[in-house]
């Protein structure tokens, strides 16, 4: 398979950069809280990829451990975030972030 | 050119194909077995018309299913509706892929069969190969990962077919699977801790031998008896079998997540369910019942032991289903979270304590 260029560290990093950018774009473009949360997950995963790649490059395992922590944090974030989403949805039948602009109602 | 085609490769492919078909046949066989055992338990005959002792019944069922018409609710989500059964079936097969069902062997016993050597010149493989579709050295993780994917088939089926029964069934089953996965995983973890390895094959090999010459050193018997119990209970819940069969609780929600399915796509779900049973049983055998290790049989026939054990566990499954009534849903959840999970945690801690301080 010599015709396929070997992936280097940079290719991994670029990949994760692209994913991250996509995630951010999602956060801004989507008008649906759930999808926005999903986009955040995308961003997190981009970061994870960087960690693991660099980890491999340095031949250590610390990055993988941090990935582990990121995942736990992501879990916590998803749990609370979705709970908030549900609570919001109960108030106004809408998931549009622009619909929730006042701190109290 | 074809130099990469070695006898090892051929045999390995053979094993994979064998495993694949064995699973399907097992599924068919299970259907038959289930109905027979049910008949036994309920003191009736069960299938007996089609073929001798009704042995061909499963075949008939399959044929019937194949010739049925594919129905799809109008409001269903096209892609997902068809993706769902495929997903669950795939997950079911994939999970079994990493389960080894016999000791490494170089098949020299094949050569012992008359004429084999003289006809093919085969005298046994140059190096022994694993009796498993794929031998991954983090096998347990893989199994766990794939089982956790299995839930999607159900959930999607529930959601895609856009009917309240299916949706409820899907929600229920996914909630149930998630809840019991924890206990399931913890049971795994304690075994991993004891064996100090993630490779199923090594775990099995650690269970070779006997205490006092007659008690087999199976984790399921002494050190991990409770782990075994927890695993079995969680496993039953994972595979949505009675007494935990909420996803398809007929009385409450017609047929649960596959209410709207028919013909082959329904068959796929069916298949998936039974293959999952087999997988759970096989994993239980490997992790807790010493896999292919057993008395009386030479190493290269160990797989027979393996199948015997799996068969027994499956029988136990069916037995459970036809003797126990169904839980109530809240009871199920309460049991999962308030009893099974703490029990699993305690089991894990105790195991850890033993491993650290008694150096098992």
């Amino acid at each position, binding site marked *: 398979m010599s015709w396929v260029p*070997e992936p280097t560290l940079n290719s991994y990093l670029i*990949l994760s950069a692209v*994913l991250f950018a996509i995630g951010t774009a999602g956060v801004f473009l989507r008008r649906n809280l759930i999808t926005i949360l999903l986009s955040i997950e995308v961003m997190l995963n981009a970061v994870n990829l960087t960690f693991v790649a660099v980890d*491999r490059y340095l031949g250590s395992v610390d990055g993988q451990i941090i990935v582990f922590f990121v*995942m736990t944090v992501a879990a916590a974030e998803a749990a609370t975030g979705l709970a908030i989403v549900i609570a919001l*949805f109960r108030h106004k039948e809408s998931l549009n972030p622009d619909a929730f602009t006042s701190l109290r109602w | 050119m074809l130099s990469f085609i070695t006898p090892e490769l051929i045999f390995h492919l053979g094993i994979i194909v064998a495993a694949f078909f064995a699973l399907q046949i097992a599924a068919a066989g299970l259907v038959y077995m289930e109905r027979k055992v049910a008949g036994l338990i309920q003191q009736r005959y069960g299938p007996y018309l089609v073929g001798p002792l009704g042995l061909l019944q499963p075949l008939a069922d399959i044929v019937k299913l194949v010739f049925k018409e594919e129905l799809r609710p109008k409001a269903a989500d096209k892609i997902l509706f068809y993706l769902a059964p495929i997903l669950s079936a795939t997950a079911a097969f994939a999970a079994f892929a990493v389960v080894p069902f016999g000791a490494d062997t170089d098949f020299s016993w094949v050569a012992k069969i008359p004429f084999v050597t003289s006809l093919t010149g085969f005298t046994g493989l140059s190096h022994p190969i694993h009796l498993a579709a794929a031998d991954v050295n983090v096998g347990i993780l893989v199994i766990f990962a794939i089982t956790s994917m299995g*839930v999607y088939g159900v959930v999607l089926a529930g959601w895609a077919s856009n009917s309240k029964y299916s949706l409820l069934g899907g929600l229920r089953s996914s909630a149930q699977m998630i809840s019991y996965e924890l206990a399931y995983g913890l049971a795994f973890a304690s075994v991993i801790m004891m064996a100090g390895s993630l*490779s199923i094959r090594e775990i099995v090999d650690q269970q070779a031998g006997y205490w006092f010459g007659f008690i087999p050193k199976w984790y399921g018997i002494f050190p991990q008896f409770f782990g075994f119990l927890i695993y079995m209970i969680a496993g039953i819940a994972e595979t949505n079998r009675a007494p935990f069969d909420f996803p398809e609780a007929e009385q409450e929600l017609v047929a649960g997540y596959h209410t709207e399915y028919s013909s082959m796509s329904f068959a796929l779900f069916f298949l998936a369910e039974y293959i999952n049973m087999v997988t759970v049983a096989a994993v239980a055998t490997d992790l807790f019942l010493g896999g292919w290790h057993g008395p009386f049989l030479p190493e290269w026939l160990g797989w027979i032991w393996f199948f015997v054990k799996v068969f027994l566990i499956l029988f136990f499954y069916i037995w459970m289903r036809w003797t126990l009534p169904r839980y109530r849903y809240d009871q199920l959840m309460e049991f999962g979270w308030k009893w099974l999970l703490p029990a699993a945690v305690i089991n894990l801690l105790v195991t850890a304590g033993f491993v650290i301080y008694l150096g098992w």
Partner: protein
Amino acid sequence: MHALLFWIFAAVAIVASLLVVGQRNPMHSVLLLIGSFGALSGLYVLLGAPFVAAIQIIIYAGAIMVLFLFVVMLLNAASEDPVTGYHARLIGGAGPRRLGAVLSLGLAIELFWALRNLQTAPLASGDQQPPATAVYDIGLRLFQNYAFAFEATSVLILVAMVGAIILARRERA
């Protein structure tokens, strides 16, 4: 082989994530995201980190995403509501959207450029350490050097759990 797999996975990941962001049905977004997770875990395997790959599937795809799925099912908000001119005008909901999109594009370009200017660093291909021992090392470091962080996360999870329950409870105290 590695190389080919890498490009395939990368392509899958990017396309999937693009679609996650790109189409409006949240249900599909969730599933596509799972797809991209699958691709990522494939990449992790290529990077010789099977443990991470496994927990990526188990935790992310197996648990977190199911949570999302739940919510989507519960709220059954098939697709997002169209932008109401009212909000758009009042908060300039549209303004930040466009700007943000542009900015993210900018970030992509910046990073891309930065990495281009970096001299390329080849990865030792093939896994340099048998995964089992990798898991072992991870375990050791996790419970020795990162013990505190670990405990802290456990507390975080607990808090998140309680918070989620409080938030999602229907009857308000």
